[in-house]
C-alpha cells in the first residue's frame, strides 16, 4: 500500500494485566472503509480510541499520514479524526448547536448554517424541523443521527464509527449507511466502522477485519445477503430478490431470515452472459472500482447492483484478460451452494 493513512506496528494496549489489543501490523489506506467485527471485549473499540488519539498505546508504533503520533501535536491529530461513540452523548443544547459545536471549536464560522443544515440532511433529518429542537426532544434514533451529523459537519479526513446502528430501526440504519458513504463521496473520508450488524457492515465496508482476544484475524472480503429467503423448486433451492430486481438462488438456508455469506473468492467474473454453467447465479453488475488487495496481490473488483455492492476476488491475470474498467457491466457468477450461513 502506498502512503497509508495509518500505520500500526507491534502495537499493544494493556489494562493492568489484561492484553486488550495486540496488532503486529495494520495499514489503513486513505479513502477506504474498514469494517471491524468480533465479539464484545475483542479489542475493536480500543482500536478506535487508539485511532482517534484518545488513548496512547502501551507499546508499539502508530503513524498518521507518515508522521509518528508519539511526540506529535495531539490537538492537531485529534482535529483530523472524529469518533462517533457507541452510545452517543448529545451536548445540553439545541440540535443546531450540537451540530455546529465542532465548527465553532475550530473557529470555522464561515457558512456555518449551510454546513449544519447540509449535515442534518445527510442523516435524513429536516433542518427546518429539527435544528431548533432541544436535545431532550429527540428519539434514540434521531439523537444518534444528530450525533453523526455533528461529526459530518466538521468534515474530518477520518470518521470512526462505533456500532452506529446499535438500537436503531432499519430505516435509520439505512440512513446512517448512506451518510457514511456520502462522507467518502463528498470529501474522500476514510472510515473505520465497528458493528455487530454484519449485513450492514458488509454493505458499507471495503474490507473486514475480524477481532478475537485483542488480535485482528486475516483480512477477508465477504459479501452478505440478508434474507428473507423463499423456498423454490420443492424446497431444495431458495431464492431472494435483490433491490435491483435480480434474483439470488441458494441451497436451503438454516432459516428464512438467515444471513448468507459469500466469500469474494467464490465469485467468478465474465463480461458476457454465460450459458450452460453449473453456477446457478449470474448477476449483472456495474463495475465501480478495482483495487489491489493488500498482501495477497489479488485484484478486488467491486460491482454494484442498485444499492448492493458486491466484491469479487480475481487473480491479477484474470483481471488483465477481462480488460475490465469502472463503469463497464459484467456478470458475477457463483454457485447456490457457495453460501455460508449466520
Amino acid at each position: 500500500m502506498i502512503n497509508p493513512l495509518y500505520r500500526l506496528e507491534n502495537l499493544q494496549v494493556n489494562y493492568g494485566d489484561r492484553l486488550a489489543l495486540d496488532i503486529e501490523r495494520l495499514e489503513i489506506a486513505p479513502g477506504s472503509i474498514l469494517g471491524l467485527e468480533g465479539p464484545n471485549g475483542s479489542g475493536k473499540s480500543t482500536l478506535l480510541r487508539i485511532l482517534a488519539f484518545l488513548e496512547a498505546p502501551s507499546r508499539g508504533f502508530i503513524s498518521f499520514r507518515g508522521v509518528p503520533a508519539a511526540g506529535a501535536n495531539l490537538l492537531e491529530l485529534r482535529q483530523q479524526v472524529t469518533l462517533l461513540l457507541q452510545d452517543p452523548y448529545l451536548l445540553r443544547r439545541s440540535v443546531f448547536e450540537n451540530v455546529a459545536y465542532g465548527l465553532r471549536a475550530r473557529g470555522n464560522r464561515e457558512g456555518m448554517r449551510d454546513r449544519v443544515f447540509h449535515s442534518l440532511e445527510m442523516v435524513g433529518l429536516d433542518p427546518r424541523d429539527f435544528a431548533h429542537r432541544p436535545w431532550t426532544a429527540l428519539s434514540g434514533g434521531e439523537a444518534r443521527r444528530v450525533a453523526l451529523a455533528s461529526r459530518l459537519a466538521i468534515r474530518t479526513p477520518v470518521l470512526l464509527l462505533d456500532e452506529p446502528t446499535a438500537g436503531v430501526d432499519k430505516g435509520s440504519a439505512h440512513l446512517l449507511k448512506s451518510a457514511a458513504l456520502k462522507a467518502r463521496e463528498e470529501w474522500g473520508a476514510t472510515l473505520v466502522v465497528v458493528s455487530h450488524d454484519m449485513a450492514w457492515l458488509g454493505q458499507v465496508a471495503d474490507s473486514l477485519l475480524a477481532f478475537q482476544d485483542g488480535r485482528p484475524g486475516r483480512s477477508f472480503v465477504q459479501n452478505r445477503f440478508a434474507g428473507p429467503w423463499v423456498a423454490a423448486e420443492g424446497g431444495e433451492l431458495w431464492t431472494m430478490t435483490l433491490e435491483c430486481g435480480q434474483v439470488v438462488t441458494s441451497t436451503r438456508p438454516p432459516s428464512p431470515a438467515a444471513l448468507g455469506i459469500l466469500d469474494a473468492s467464490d465469485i467468478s467474473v465474465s463480461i458476457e452472459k454465460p450459458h450452460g454453467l453449473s453456477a446457478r447465479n449470474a448477476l449483472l453488475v456495474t463495475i465501480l472500482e478495482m483495487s489491489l488487495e493488500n498482501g495477497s496481490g489479488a485484484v478486488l473488483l467491486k460491482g454494484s447492483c442498485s444499492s448492493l455492492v458486491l466484491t469479487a476476488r480475481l487473480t491479477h491475470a484474470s483481471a488483465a484478460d477481462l480488460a475490465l474498467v469502472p463503469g463497464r457491466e459484467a456478470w458475477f457468477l457463483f454457485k447456490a451452494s457457495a453460501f455460508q450461513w449466520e
Partner: protein
Amino acid sequence: MDFILEGFSQALALLLSGNPETWSAVDVTIRLTALSMFVSLLAGLPLGILLGTRDFPGRRLVRAVVDTCLALPTVVVGLLVYAFISRQGPLGSLDLLFSIRGMAIGQAILALPIVVALTASALEGADPRMLLTLQTLGTPPGRMVLGLLREVRFAVLAAAVTAYGRVVAEVGVSMMLGGNIKWHTRTITTAITLETGKGEFSMGIALGLVLLAISFILNGGLSFFRRRAAS
C-alpha cells in the same frame, strides 16, 4: 407580639422611604459579596474542574481538605485573615483591615471550598461520555473548560448560589475584618446584629427582608434558567 408587628411596619417604612443608613448596609453588602464571589469563582472554578476531571497524586487528600473546609467557622477565618492583614501581620502594609477588600478576602476563603467542592462533584457525577464527546469533536484545551462548564452549568450555578448564600449571611468575617463601621463596612448581617442588640427591631427586620429577597431572587433565577433550558 405587638412590637414584632410594629417592627415590620417600621421596616417597610425604612425601606420605602430610602433610609440612608439602611440602604448603606445593603450597598456595602452587595459590593462586598460581588467582590468576594468574583474572586472565589475565578479561583474556584478552575480548581473544581481540575479536581473533578484529573487524576493526580494526592487528589484524595486535596479532596478531603476541600470537603473539610466546607464547614470552616467564620470566626476562625476572620481570626486567621485578621492576623495576616492587621498592622503587625505580613500584609499589614496593604491597609486591608477594616476595608471592603479585606472583608472580601475572608469571604472568598469561606466561599472557595464550596465552589471547588460542588464544581468537582458536578463533574465527577457528570456523564463520562461528556469529556470524550468534546475531545472527539476536536475541542482545543482553552475551550474545553468552557465546554465542560456549559455542560454542567446548572450544577455550577447552584454551587455559586450556595456559596453566595454562605457569604451574604455570615457575620463573623464581616464583623472581625470590617469592624462594623457605619457607612463604610457595616453590612446587612452586622447591622442586624448591632441593631437587635440595641433593641432597634425595625431596622433589623428591614435588613432581614432584604436578605430574604436576595435569596429569593437568586433561587428563582436558577429555577427559571433550568426550566427554560429543559423546554
